[in-house]
C-alpha cells in the first residue's frame, strides 16, 4: 500500500485550474490573510502569503492577527525590462509595497508587504506594462534565467529569445489569472486545458536557466533544466542540455541534498522547445507526488537513473542528444562598471546590495534608478546576482547616466571584491521559511569578513560568499566558496569549498555556529589560504587542494557523509 498522495496535489486537482477560492478570500474583510488552501494556489499566481514575523508576538497580545503581507514575484525572462516598465515597477513598489522592491537571484523583481486589498492593483499595475506574475512561485516553471551578456550583443539577443520562448512555452494555459486579476470576468466556453502540465501541474517547482559561457552567473547547474549556449563565430549553434540541478535541502534529512544538474547532451536550437517539454512532462509523470521533499526533478533522476531518464526525454522529444560540446566557465559573478558591446553600445552594471531597493536617509537607489529610467533609451537587465545592468547606452548618453549612478550610490566602485561577489536571500522578517537572518545580517557579516581579509592581505581577492536564512537555497548557497546557511536565530552552518564558477558544490564544514565561532573559523582558514595558496588560486580551490574540505562528488551519496 503506497503512502497517500500529498494534500497539495488534491488541492491543485480541486482548484479548478488554479482558481481555488481566491475571489472569496480577497473579499473577506475580517482578515488580511487568504484562506489556508488559497495560500497554496496563490503561489501559481506569483504571490506568497507572509507576515511580519518581528511583530507577531506583539500583535497577538494586541488581539490583532499577524501583519499579513504578500510577496509577489514577477515573470521576467532573462531579467530584461524597458525603462517604461521600470518606472511602472518602481511606482508600484513605492505606492503599494512599502516603498521598496527587491531584485531576485532569478533575475526578477519582487514586492514584499503588499496588503490583500492591494494585490489586484499590483497585478494590474505590472500588467499595464505587459509584465505578469504567472508562475512567479508554485509548482510550475519559474522565471527563466538567461545570462544578460551585453557584450556579445547579437548572441545575447538570440539566446535571450530562446529563454523567452521557453518561458512562454511553459506558461500555464489556465485563464484563472486573467479572470481573477485582470478581466474580472469568467470567460465563457469550454473548460481550461493544460496541455503540458495537466490538472495537477508539476509535483514541485521547476527552474530553468540559459547560460552563455564563459559566464555562469545563472548557476546553470543549479537548475532543474539548463541550457548552455554553444556559439560558433558569434552565432548560436545549439545548447548543451542539463537536468536535475537544485539547491534545496532540509536540515537533518539526509534524503535531501543539493545537486548539480547532469549534462544530457547537445541539441540544436530548434530542438530546444521539444526537449524542454519532454523534460517537464517526464517530471510531471515520474515526479514524486507523495513527499514534497522528494519531488524535485533531481530526486526523480536519482530514482530513475540518468540513462533511463535521458532515454525517456529523447523518446518524448523525438530527438537524440548529440555528445555535449566542451564548455569553459570562468566566473559566476557580475562584471561591474561600464563595458562596451559588439554593437558599440555601452552597458553599466550597478551594484545593488542584496538586490534591495529602498530609499532612506543618505541612500536613494530607487530614486536614482528612477531618474536613470526617465532618460534611458536602452533597456535594463536584472542579473542573477541581484544587480542591475543599464544596457544599450550610446556613447553620448554615458556621462549623464554615470553621473546619476554616482550621485545615488549605485556604482560598484569602492566596494570590496568580497562584497561584489556576494548574494543573500530575503529571510527575516518576511519569509516564513527563514530560521535566521540573511539580508539584514549580510552587510555586517561581510564587514567582519572584510576585516579578516584585510588582516590576511586578501583584500583584493574575490570570494563568492552567500548567505541564506534557511536550507532551501534561494541564494544558491551550496555553490558558493563560502556560505552561511541559517539554522536558528544567530546560528548558521558554515559551508565551504565551491569553485567560484558554479561547477562544484560546497560542503558543510561546521554546524550550527554563532557569529564568533564563524569568524574564528574564517580567520583561521583565511590565514592558511594566504600562506598556502598558489598564484591565482581561489579560496574554495585551495580548501579542496589542501584537504581542508573534501569535495562533494555525488551528493546523493556523499553530501552528508
Amino acid at each position, binding site marked *: 500500500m503506497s503512502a497517500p498522495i500529498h494534500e497539495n496535489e488534491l488541492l491543485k486537482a480541486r482548484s479548478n485550474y488554479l482558481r481555488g477560492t481566491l475571489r472569496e478570500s480577497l473579499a473577506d*474583510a475580517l*482578515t488580511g490573510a487568504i484562506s489556508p488552501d488559497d495560500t497554496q494556489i496563490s503561489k501559481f499566481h506569483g504571490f506568497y502569503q507572509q507576515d511580519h514575523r518581528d511583530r507577531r508576538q506583539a500583535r497577538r497580545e494586541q488581539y490583532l*492577527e499577524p501583519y499579513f503581507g504578500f510577496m509577489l514575484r514577477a515573470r521576467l525572462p532573462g531579467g530584461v525590462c524597458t525603462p517604461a516598465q521600470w518606472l511602472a515597477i518602481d511606482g508600484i513598489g513605492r505606492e503599494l509595497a512599502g516603498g521598496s522592491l527587491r531584485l531576485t537571484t532569478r533575475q526578477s523583481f519582487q514586492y514584499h508587504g503588499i496588503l490583500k486589498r492591494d494585490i489586484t492593483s499590483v497585478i494590474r499595475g505590472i500588467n499595464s506594462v505587459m509584465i505578469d506574475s504567472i508562475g512567479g512561485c508554485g509548482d510550475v516553471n519559474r522565471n527563466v534565467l538567461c545570462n544578460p551578456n551585453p557584450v556579445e550583443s547579437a548572441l545575447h539577443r538570440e539566446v535571450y529569445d530562446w529563454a523567452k520562448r521557453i518561458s512562454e512555452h511553459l506558461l500555464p494555459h489556465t485563464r484563472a489569472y486573467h479572470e481573477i486579476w485582470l478581466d474580472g470576468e469568467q470567460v465563457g466556453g469550454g473548460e481550461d486545458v493544460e496541455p503540458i502540465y495537466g490538472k495537477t501541474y508539476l509535483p514541485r517547482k521547476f527552474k530553468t536557466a540559459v547560460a552563455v559561457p564563459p559566464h555562469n552567473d545563472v548557476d546553470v547547474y543549479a537548475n532543474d533544466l539548463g541550457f548552455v549556449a554553444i556559439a560558433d563565430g558569434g552565432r548560436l549553434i545549439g545548447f548543451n542540455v542539463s537536468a536535475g540541478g537544485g539547491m534545496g535541502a532540509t536540515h537533518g534529512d539526509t534524503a535531501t541534498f543539493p545537486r548539480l544538474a547532469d549534462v544530457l547532451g547537445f541539441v540544436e536550437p530548434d530542438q530546444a522547445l521539444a526537449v524542454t517539454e519532454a523534460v517537464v512532462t517526464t517530471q510531471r509523470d515520474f515526479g514524486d507526488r507523495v513527499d514534497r521533499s522528494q519531488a524535485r526533478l533531481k530526486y526523480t533522476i536519482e530514482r530513475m537513473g540518468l540513462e533511463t531518464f535521458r532515454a525517456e526525454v529523447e523518446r518524448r522529444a523525438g530527438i537524440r542528444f548529440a555528445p555535449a560540446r566542451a564548455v569553459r566557465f570562468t566566473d559566476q559573478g557580475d562584471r561591474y562598471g561600464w563595458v562596451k558591446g559588439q554593437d558599440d553600445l555601452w552597458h553599466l552594471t550597478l551594484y545593488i546590495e542584496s538586490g534591495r531597493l529602498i530609499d532612506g536617509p543618505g541612500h536613494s537607489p530607487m530614486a536614482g534608478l528612477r531618474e536613470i529610467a526617465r532618460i534611458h533609451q536602452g533597456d535594463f537587465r536584472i542579473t542573477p546576482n541581484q544587480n542591475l545592468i543599464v544596457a544599450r547606452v550610446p556613447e553620448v548618453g554615458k556621462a549623464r547616466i554615470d553621473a546619476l549612478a554616482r550621485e545615488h550610490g549605485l556604482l560598484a566602485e569602492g566596494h570590496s571584491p568580497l562584497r561584489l561577489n556576494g548574494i543573500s536571500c530575503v529571510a527575516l522578517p518576511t519569509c516564513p521559511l527563514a530560521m535566521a537572518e540573511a539580508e539584514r545580517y549580510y552587510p555586517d557579516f561581510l564587514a567582519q569578513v572584510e576585516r579578516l581579509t584585510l588582516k590576511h592581505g586578501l583584500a583584493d581577492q574575490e570570494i563568492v560568499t552567500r548567505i541564506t536564512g534557511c536550507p532551501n537555497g534561494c541564494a544558491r548557497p551550496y555553490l558558493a566558496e563560502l556560505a552561511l546557511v541559517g539554522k536558528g536565530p544567530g546560528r548558521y552552518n558554515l559551508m565551504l569549498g565551491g569553485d567560484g564558477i558554479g561547477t562544484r558544490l560546497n560542503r558543510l564544514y561546521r554546524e550550527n555556529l554563532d557569529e564568533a565561532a564563524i569568524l574564528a573559523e574564517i580567520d583561521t582558514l583565511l590565514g592558511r589560504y594566504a600562506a598556502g595558496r598558489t598564484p591565482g588560486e581561489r579560496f574554495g580551490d585551495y580548501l579542496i587542494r589542501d584537504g581542508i574540505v573534501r569535495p562533494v562528488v555525488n551528493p546523493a551519496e556523499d553530501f552528508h557523509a
Partner: protein
Amino acid sequence: MALSQLHALTSPVDDQQLRALQVALKGMSSTQIAWVSGYLAGIGSSGLPAPAEPKAVETVTILYGSQTGNAKAVAEQLGSQSIGQGIDARVISMGDFSPRKLTKERWVLLVVSTHGEGEPPESAYALHAFIQDQGAARLEQLRYAVLGLGDSSYEHFCRTALDFDRRLAELGAQRILPLQCCDLDYRGDTERWSTDALNRLNALAPRRTGNVVALPGLRSHQEQSQNQARPYDKDNPYPATLLENRRITTPDAVMDVRHLALAIDPEALRYRPGDALGVWIKNDPTLAEAILTRVGLDGETRIHLGDEELDLRHALIERLELTQLHPTTVRAWSERADAPELKALATDAAGLRAYAGERQLIDLVSDHPAPIDAPALVALLRPLQPRLYSIASSQAEYEDEVHLTVSVVRYQAHGRDHLGAASGFLGERLGRDEPVRVYVAENDAFRLPDDGDTPLIMIGAGTGVAPYRAFLQQRAANGDRGRNWLIFGNRHFHRDFLYQLDWQAQRKAGRLDRVSLAFSRDGAQKLYVQQRLREEGREILRWLDAGAHLYVCGATAMGQAVDRALVDIFTTEAGLDPDAAQASVDTLRREARYHRDLYA
C-alpha cells in the same frame, strides 16, 4: 437561588404560583427585584394587603427617560418614596410606555435626562416625538411635573426636560411644580424636588388607603444598611481590582486603546450585556500639584466639602472635577483674573462654552493667573463625577471579571500636555494593588432581544464596538441561533481593528455571519460606517424584514450619521418618501428594535 431553579417539588409554592411569579418578575432589573424582595418580606411579616378597590384609586405614573441609569435610579427612589407615603405609584421607562396612553393618565411625574446636543435618551425618543407632534392630542386631564438631569457645560442643558415641561403645558396639561433642572451633582436637587412633588400630590390627589404596605428596606439607605447588605451602586461603589491593562492598538496607531479587565465578586456585582460600568476615578496627582503650584496654594490646607473636612490636595484628586472645565468656572475666574479676554467671554455664552470646551482648569489658571484662596477654589469647581464605560464582556463568559475598552485621551494644547482624567486614571495610573470604585450603570435601552433567534445588526465605531463583544459572548453562552452582523469602523485595519481576534474566533464558531468594515484612513478617500451602511442598504432592509434589532454605539456624531443613513436606506432601497422613511425608523425605535448608546 435563581428563580429559574425554583421548582414546585422543592419549594412551598405550586407550579401555577411559580409561573405567575416568573411572569411578574420577568424583565425586572436587579434593583427592582431587590425592591420586590423587600416588599414581599414586608408582606410576610404584616400579612397580605387588602386587594385594591377599583375606581377608588388613582395611580401616579412616574415616567423616566434614562440613558446612564441616573434618571432611572431617581425615578425608582421617587417610586418607593411615594409608596412609602401611601401614594400608589408605578415606575415605568418611557421606552416601555405607549405614548397614546398619555391621554388616559391623570398624574404623571417625569424624570428625564438630556444628552449630546440636547437629545433625549434613547428610551424617551418615541414619547418625546409624540408630544412634539403638531397634531398631538390635548392633555387637559393631565397634571404633571418634570425633573431634568443634565450637564450644564453643554449648550442644551436639560433640553429634553424643558421640551416636556413646555410642551405638556401647551397641550393643556397642568403643571403642579416648576421644572427642576439638575446638573451633574444632582443628588440634593432631586431629593428636594421629590419631596416637593410628593407633597403636592398629597395635597392634590386622593390618597389610596387600601393596599399601602410598609416597605422595609426602602425607607432610606441608612436604615437599609442596618438590616441587610446594601447593594453596590453609584453611592456605594464596589472596590474592583485591576487584572489586566493591555494596549490593543499598535504603537503607530493614533489612539492608545486599552483592554482592561477588572476582578469583581460575582455575588456582589451583576451586570448584563449593554450595561455600562460607572467608575469613580481619581485625578492625576501631578495635575493637582501643578494646579496648586499655579494658584499658589498649599495642598495641606484644610477645606470643607459639605459636612466633611479634608486636605485641599485630597479634594482636588478625589472629589473635584479638574479636567472638564465648566463655563461657570471660567466666568467666575474672569472676575478674579486681570484678563480682558476672559472678561469679554463672560457675557458671550457661546464663546464661553467654546473656551471651556477646549481647555482644562490648568490652562485657565496658567494662562490667566489670579489670586485665590482654598475655599474659593473649591467653590469654583464641580464635584467629580463617575465616568461610564460600556462593558465589553459578558458575565456568562467572565463571571468574576468586567472588561472595558478605554481610549486614553492624550493631547497637546495651549502649550501643555493633557491627559483625560478617566482614561488616564484607568489606562495609566491605576495599579494592581489599589482598588477602583465601580458600579453597574444599567442600560435598559441597549439590551439583547429576549428571543435568541432574533438577528442583530451591531454598528460601532472605535471603542463603541465594546458592547458587541459582550453581546456575542452572551449569545454564545445562551446558545442563541440568531444571525449576527458586525459593522465596525476605525482608522486603520492594521493598527486599530479592536478585538480582531475575538471577531475572527466568533466567526469561526459560526456566530458572526456578516462583517462590514470601514477604516477611514486606509484608502485615498475616508470611509465611515454610515457609508458602509448605505452600501449594504438592501441587505440591511432584508435583515430588518427578518426582525433584526439594530444597535449603534459610539460617538454622538457617528450615531447621527448612521441615523441619517438609515432614513436614506428606507428612501433609496425601499422607495419611501422622506417622511415615510423617517416614520419607518421611528417605528423601529418604538418597537425597541433600534437601540443606541452614544457619547460625546
